């Protein structure tokens, strides 16, 4: 069957516009995956849920041209493995392992190593199924892990982490190298797994956006918006027009703040400290404007169910507009300096290349994907409000190296500055928030927002009396971490920090 035929039999999926829902059998689950892969669709999140009525289910979400399909596969016999799709969508491998760790549901995949569990809780304990543990052993268990060994003359391993040399998040990287050249990198993540999904079930439905914002602090707006979109979808709640526009303003501010930070750090990693000083100065000015106008440097509590936490005043509009104009003109000047600097260009060009072909095969997504000719941006492809009214210029580059991931940040930063000026100029009048009524139990809502790093998903089901039955957040880092293992092959070890930074993936958003 074609993807269109599968879509024709689907139902409307509450939440983000353009999503469809389909209940499938194990056989269909596999056939849809094959048809999706053949049609060049991309895999989003893969997660499990359970209700009393249905028993355990696994879900998958795919994105195709202009629409998305959310699958639900009921597992009649949970001890029988469900069909894995990691041969078709490599990013599924780790998500399937994570599902096994957290809910005990196994796939047919051959890699049976744990992923998010390092042995700190009993192997029999299923955090997303069993009640919270009251008593835990005081000493965490063993964390031996079977890394894939590379053997041969002169091959040696370099083990890095979990505590890294810089101010970054913890994770473990195992390099197999000859001399300085990297033959293989294997990542081990899960160090900052702090039980976010179980924690969601202990929070009131109308407070869950706060935890969503803290899934990955650098993408707080994207996650809290996706949460609210899912919630408003299942509660049939329309938000005021002004609220949608304010949310887009926050999302673009978040994009600019992160791009400024990354552009500085990338210059620094290429030995050009001037870049770090200049860009971190601009970022600080932006955060101070956020503080002055929106009451927060980072917009962790800016989006709430039904709208936004506060309104934007007239002087706030003027002040933000002025700041964005300044940043845009300074970044333009700095871009010329980066582009004309021979040393910086030398480090950026050709480092950590992911070809368009490999990117498509691995499902490289978001900003990194667009740097490797994967032309997908939800703000254009499946626009929610207000992006249906604001035309975003999609940026796609094809070199797939660090230089491309730097260039795309410059381009997207400029575009976000333009969008913000447009939003500030055309901001609709009216309320910035409206009450949201409680939804029915167990209906699945799916939020989907193009964060600065890529598509951010939230799958949400309400429990009784304003509780959360299940909430699964999905960061695009799930797709892109495996691609980093490929991007580093053949590069030298000292270029790893630069290449890693050019992706700037989230540990917390992945480890949950």
């Amino acid at each position, binding site marked *: 069957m074609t993807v269109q035929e599968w879509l024709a039999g689907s139902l409307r999926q509450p939440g983000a516009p353009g999503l469809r829902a389909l209940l499938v059998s194990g056989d269909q689950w596999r056939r849809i995956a094959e048809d999706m892969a053949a049609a060049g669709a991309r895999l989003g999140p893969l997660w499990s849920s359970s209700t009393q009525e249905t028993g355990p289910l696994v879900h998958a979400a795919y994105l195709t041209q202009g629409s998305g399909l959310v699958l639900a596969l009921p597992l009649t016999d949970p001890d029988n493995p469900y069909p894995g799709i990691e041969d078709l969508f490599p990013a599924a491998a780790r998500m399937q392992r994570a599902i096994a760790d957290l809910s005990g549901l196994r796939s047919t995949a051959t890699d049976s190593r744990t992923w998010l569990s*390092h042995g*700190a*809780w009993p192997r029999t*304990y299923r*955090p997303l199924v069993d009640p*919270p*543990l009251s008593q*835990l052993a005081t000493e*965490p268990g063993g*964390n031996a892990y079977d890394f894939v060994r590379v053997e041969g003359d002169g091959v040696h391993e370099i083990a890095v982490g*979990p*505590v890294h*040399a*810089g*101010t*970054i*998040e*913890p994770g473990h990287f195992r390099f197999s190298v000859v001399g300085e050249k990297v033959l293989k990198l294997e990542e081990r993540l*899960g*160090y*900052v*797994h*702090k*039980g*976010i999904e*179980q*924690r969601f079930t202990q929070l009131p439905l109308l407070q869950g956006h*706060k*935890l969503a914002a*803290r*899934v*990955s*602090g*650098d993408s*707080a707006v994207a996650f809290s918006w996706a949460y609210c979109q899912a919630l408003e979808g299942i509660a049939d709640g329309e938000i005021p027009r002004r609220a949608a526009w304010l949310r887009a303003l926050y999302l673009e501010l978040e994009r600019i703040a992160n791009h400024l*930070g990354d552009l500085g750090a990338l210059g620094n990693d290429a030995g050009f400290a*001037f870049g*770090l*000083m*200049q860009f*971190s*100065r601009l*970022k*600080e000015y932006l*955060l101070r404007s956020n*503080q002055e106008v929106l009451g927060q*440097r*980072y917009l*962790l509590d800016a989006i709430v169910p039904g709208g936004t936490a506060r309104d934007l005043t007239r002087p706030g509009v003027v002040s933000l507009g002025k700041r964005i104009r300044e940043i845009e003109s300074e970044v333009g*000047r*700095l871009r*010329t*300096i980066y582009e*004309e*600097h021979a040393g910086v260009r030398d480090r950026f060009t050709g480092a950590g290349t992911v070809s368009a072909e490999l990117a498509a095969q691995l499902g490289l997504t978001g900003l990194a994907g667009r740097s490797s000719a994967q032309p997908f941006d939800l703000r254009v492809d499946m626009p929610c409000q207000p992006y249906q009214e604001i035309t975003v210029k999609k940026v796609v580059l094809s070199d797939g190296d660090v230089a491309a991931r730097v260039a795309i940040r410059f381009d997207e930063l400029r575009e976000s500055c333009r969008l913000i000026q447009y939003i500030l100029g055309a901001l609709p009048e009216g309320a910035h928030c409206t009450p949201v009524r409680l939804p029915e139990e167990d209906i699945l809502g799916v939020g989907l927002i193009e964060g600065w790093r890529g598509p951010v998903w939230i799958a949400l089901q309400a429990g009784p009396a304003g509780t959360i039955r299940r909430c699964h957040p999905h960061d695009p880092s799930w797709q892109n971490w495996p691609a980093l293992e490929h991007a580093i092959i053949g590069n030298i070890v000292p270029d790893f920090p630069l290449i890693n930074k050019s992706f700037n993936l*989230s*540990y*917390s958003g992945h*480890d949950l």
Partner: protein
Amino acid sequence: MLKTLRQIASIGIVSEPPPESDDSLRVHAGLQDQIRAVLGRALCIRHIDAGSCNGCELEIQALNNPIYNLEGLGIRFVASPRHADLLLVTGPVSRHMEGAVRRTYEATPDPKLVVALGDCGCTGGIFGESYASRGRISNVIPVDVAVPGCPPSPTRILQGILAALSRSPTRASR
């Protein structure tokens, strides 16, 4: 090159004077005098993310921007706990990081200071304690100064670091 120099010259020096230390953030007093006697204000910090959402990390990174200009105060981040005088720890301590946090603490030479950063570091925050989280930093290693906030601003972080360093008004035993 000319453009780079012109940019540097036109921006000039943007560093602001540091805030006063905020001694109310201190939860332990005693070590400060000893460390200050040896180091003055030349302090080496090792940051550990024990399970944070990465919000606190963004504000720690801001300390190195030219406006807060941390290095101008003689304080810098180092790549190894063996070079550090102070551990700046964020997040609730995930159970997967518990061992690494303890080992990093043990690898830091005495006398040492620990600053717990953010609401999660101070109380466990929104993540609390669970099968995967040990909650606040002081559940795992001794803490001298706790700086709340989600995330705390660079100014608050700096006040906390300076409080860890400043002369204690009254000596309390650990």
